[in-house]
């Protein structure tokens, strides 16, 4: 039986291949989009999810007939997680590859580097994986953002607990996490919270957090906000907090809770922790207009071995969609007009609402508050989209079963 199926599949593939090849030969010049992502180095994880988003977008746009009747081509380079390389690559994309449009790189450092090049050549960039406010506060003309900046990102979470009085702040010493911590400090007094001790900053090389956690424990705050960069440092914080019996009423983490391996690595220690999500794969359509979401999820699973898309893939898909909407609105490939359009658009993508202020800073995006409950992420807010209710207060470590 098997012996007959294989030739048939091969034959089908061959025929399909020929048709696609023939068809592609006939179509017009593609519109070229280019960007660089960290495919190697410390950012390789996020970079790969980002790449998938762009790949799915390219595939779906072309399947639907392209933009302005022209197919789309996406070029992705590897920036080795190094902003210097990002600068060089964006120079290359603009001047050597002569791409029509630039796509966003991943994370603040790289976005900073890329937008510097974009600004120089008048090439607009919709920043994908970036939240650091400084990106939009430099007076650049050719940058808009998809993600809310860190003040808004943190604000949602902190507002959620505005009844709590005392708070402690942990901060990983990186660009974007420092941005979060700054935003948190800006938000605390606005919600009537006081910091019980100065923010505790640790670095990526820190191997032992006992000392800062003991200091926090001595002040016994109601609420702990940890501006973590990923599963790695969040794991260290939670495990060591458990060890010394640090029991606030609520734990709030940035980034980590939406990273797929967070729950896997921490297991039941991740229970009750809260975080902010920019995107969830399965949400009722009522909250935002997600007509394309199901198709995106479906295509992503088909292309990448059945894996559900994660936030970082939805971000880049959203970047593509925004570019497409702006180009279609303008109707021609004019950088100036498209940049204007990007600043004026008020729309919705797979990723969520998109509306920016004059500086290009995102204003429309709705954030979700999530909590880990029984080993899964549940959405708590906005209430319309809630899948569960808040579990509060967090029980002490020794009272958990």
């Amino acid at each position, binding site marked *: 039986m098997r012996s007959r199926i294989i030739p048939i599949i091969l034959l089908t593939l061959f025929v399909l291949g020929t048709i696609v090849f023939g068809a592609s030969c006939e179509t017009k010049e593609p519109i070229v989009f280019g960007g660089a992502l960290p495919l190697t180095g410390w950012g390789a994880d996020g970079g790969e999810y980002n790449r998938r988003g762009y790949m799915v977008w390219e595939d779906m746009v072309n399947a639907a007939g392209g933009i302005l009747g022209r197919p789309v081509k996406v070029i992705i380079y590897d920036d080795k997680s190094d902003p210097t390389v990002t600068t060089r690559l964006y120079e290359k994309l603009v001047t050597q590859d002569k791409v029509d449009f630039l796509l966003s790189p991943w994370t603040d450092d790289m976005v900073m580097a890329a937008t510097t090049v974009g600004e120089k050549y008048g090439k607009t960039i919709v920043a994908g994986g970036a939240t650091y406010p400084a990106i939009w506060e430099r007076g650049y003309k050719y940058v808009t953002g998809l993600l809310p900046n860190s003040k808004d990102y943190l604000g949602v979470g902190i507002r959620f607990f505005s009844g709590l009085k005392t708070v402690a702040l942990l901060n990983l010493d990186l660009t974007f996490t420092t941005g979060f911590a700054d935003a948190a400090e800006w938000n605390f007094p606005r919600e009537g919270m006081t910091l019980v001790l100065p923010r505790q900053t640790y670095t990526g090389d*820190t191997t032992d957090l006992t*000392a800062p956690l003991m200091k926090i424990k001595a002040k016994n705050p109601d609420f702990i906000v940890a501006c973590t960069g990923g599963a790695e440092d969040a*794991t260290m914080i939670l495990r060591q907090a458990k060890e010394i019996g640090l029991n606030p009423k609520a734990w709030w983490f940035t980034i980590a809770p939406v990273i797929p391996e967070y729950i896997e690595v921490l297991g039941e220690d991740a229970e009750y922790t809260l975080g902010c999500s920019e995107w969830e794969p399965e949400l009722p359509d009522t909250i935002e207009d997600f007509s394309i979401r199901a198709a995106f999820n479906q295509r992503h699973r088909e292309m990448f071995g059945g894996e559900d898309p994660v936030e970082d893939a939805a971000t880049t898909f959203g970047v593509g969609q925004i570019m497409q909407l702006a180009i279609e609105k303008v109707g021609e490939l004019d950088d100036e007009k498209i940049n204007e359009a990007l600043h004026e658009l008020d729309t919705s993508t797979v990723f969520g609402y998109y509306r920016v202020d004059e500086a290009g800073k995102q204003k429309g995006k709705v954030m979700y508050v999530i909590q880990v409950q029984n080993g899964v992420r549940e959405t708590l807010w906005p209430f319309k989209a809630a899948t569960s209710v808040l579990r509060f207060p967090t029980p002490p470590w020794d009272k958990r079963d």
Partner: protein
Amino acid sequence: MFEAWVTVLISGLAMGAIYALVAGGLNLTWGVMNVVNMAHGVFLMLGAYITFMAWSYWGINPLFTIFLSFPILFALGALINRFLVRRTVGLASMLLTFGIFMVIENLAVVGFGGMYRSVRFFTGSYDIMGVFVSKPRIIAAGIAVAMSLLTYWFLKKTKIGVAIRAISLDRMMAEQCGVNTNQICTITFGIGAAQPAVAGSLMSLIFAFNPMLGRVFLVKAFAIVVLGGMGNFLGALIGGLTIGLVEAVIAFSGNLHLSEAAGFIIIILILLLRPSGIMGRRQ
């Protein structure tokens, strides 16, 4: 307050014991063989992955996996020495081992992926009269100290151990005493790779790690070897514990930035005062 201090100090010493184990392996490859081993960190990382895989696929108790990571990395280290490192010393060996580091780390990223892993086995702590002692850290530290002392005993009391020390002092003369220095160096490099692998196995219980795990520890390990005195095996243990302790004290009384900077500043100061390390021989 007293309990808090003791908690912090014990935690610092535990971390110091793990530093010492990492530095101990480096002391063999660097202190004895004069190979500036840039690949040291990847041995650690491979040890962590061996434990993770044995635990997650076969459910092996992570503490027993050190009996896997030790021989596997011993063999890998021996092979690397036999076919590559043997003919180089000093800066050339740095070039070579950096090449090995690039190959292994890159293959690990491709093979294991960049995502974080961790072994969830012991969590929580022992509460001894208000002093919190982290279970995974104290167990890891205990094994690390035992491992360091075992190596010390091995070098002090066995025939091969004495030969290793003889080679570190005068390789040519050792050869003329009938020591097959190539063979002994292969064994030395094997142990030098297996020791950080055990440290890596222990770290998989403590940290969430990915293929970049070893990088954090490499710089500190180099510094601790020099601090303890090159080729001095008890010195590496003492140096590691010292750094762990100092970091904990300053982290608790000052802040984390200062504590990490202090580790390095102390290394500079000690070297200025005693240029051959805490336990080093005077020249």
